[in-house]
């Protein structure tokens, strides 16, 4: 039995306390211990971005991050993006643009896209392309993904941000 330790952190705005094996990855903790299955496991090696979550305001691959390292930090998953009104603008844009096919890469893709627009309200299409380099999609071909991200940037530029 692997050594375990108790950690406390904020998950999607709520405090959680959980006992985790010290070698467990954040992705496994989210999915198997906390039941948040929105974040996906695909490559498990940091290549594909399906497991992207936000930790202390920065996106990273939860398949590489040790769960113990969440201690004291603020973690946001795809489940945490929704607002009281429903989907957040990035989620809405992906739906409106038909940017989703099988959907498996989408939680990670949307987390990363949302982060990019948050970091840079004037994000260009090229910036979005570079920023999404760590998110692989086997279905969509990315054009509609970039359209969706662009539409959120435009919304922000017309005074609603």
């Amino acid at each position, binding site marked *: 039995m*692997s*050594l375990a330790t108790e950690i406390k952190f904020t998950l999607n705005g709520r405090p959680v306390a959980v006992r985790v094996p*010290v070698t467990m990855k954040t992705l496994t903790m989210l999915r198997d211990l906390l039941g948040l299955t929105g974040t996906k496991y695909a490559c498990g090696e940091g290549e594909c971005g399906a497991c992207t979550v936000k930790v202390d305001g920065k996106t*990273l*691959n939860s398949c*590489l991050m*040790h769960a113990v390292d969440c201690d004291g930090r603020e973690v946001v998953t795809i489940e945490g993006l929704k607002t009281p009104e429903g989907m957040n603008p990035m989620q809405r844009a992906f739906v409106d643009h038909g940017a989703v096919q099988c959907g498996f890469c989408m939680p990670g893709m949307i987390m990363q896209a949302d982060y990019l627009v948050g970091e840079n309200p004037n994000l260009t299409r090229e910036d979005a392309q570079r920023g999404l380099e760590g998110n692989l999609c086997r279905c969509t071909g990315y054009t509609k993904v970039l359209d969706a991200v662009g539409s959120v940037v435009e919304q922000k530029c017309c005074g609603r941000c």
Partner: protein
Amino acid sequence: MQDIKTYLSPRGIDEAVRAMAAGDVTVFCGGTDLSPQVESGARQYTATLMNIRRVEGMSGIAEAGNLVRIGALTTVTEIRRDPLVARVASILAEAAEHFASDQIRNAASLGGNICNASPAGDMINPLLVLDAEVELARWQDGAVATRRVAMADFFLAPRQTAKRDGELLTAVFFARPATNFVACFRKSGPRPALEISTVSVGIGGRLDNGVFRDVRVAMGSVAPTPLRARHVEAALEGKRLDADGILAAVAAAKTDAKPIDDVRASAWYREHLVQVFTEEVLNHVLGN
């Protein structure tokens, strides 16, 4: 796998190196190298697992007199965006720009990149060009003791460095380059992102009325360790950086590079590429 008996997340360098003195400690930071290595069985955790993310005094980029200090915990994203780095050591920002993906850059630490000691480590190349030193801390006679080792002497063999058991890499230092210092970095792979360098070349020096001085050349992925290319340096030092000078440097690149065939490229291709890059980078240096 050996059972992990202890998990530590120290807050101070003293606490960290004191625990390391007892031996059998696996240090982890962003985990972007360690996690895949452990998953694949290439490496195993030892009795104590130590998370150094929260150690104070090991993050951030600052000037200390004529030196620039970058803490070992500083992420590649922080380096990529730092105004001081952009101003005085843009070659480092250039390498950060071509490093992995956003998500990896947000997690990957400078110290992890150096200690992983891969010949393809992309932060290592520009730091060799900047003639940086690493600071290593250990617990000795009841206190923290430190020593500095030049990056050029740090990499001994594949995955083997001058860092001894019980030593923690705390920071990197380099002298603020002169105002006429110019440097460029180029790495290759079949695609721009998420690419482990097939070959990388970094070149820097002072351009003094067309004459290149204090030249430093670094090469990645063409030898068992990251490399200072001494023959290319000698070919360039004190010479005019013109077509003839560049030709001589390109010829010397073949002497420095000792590439091998591996899954990413053949030795032949690497030898060819290192010459192409030497030429390209020098033309770029001239252009700047």
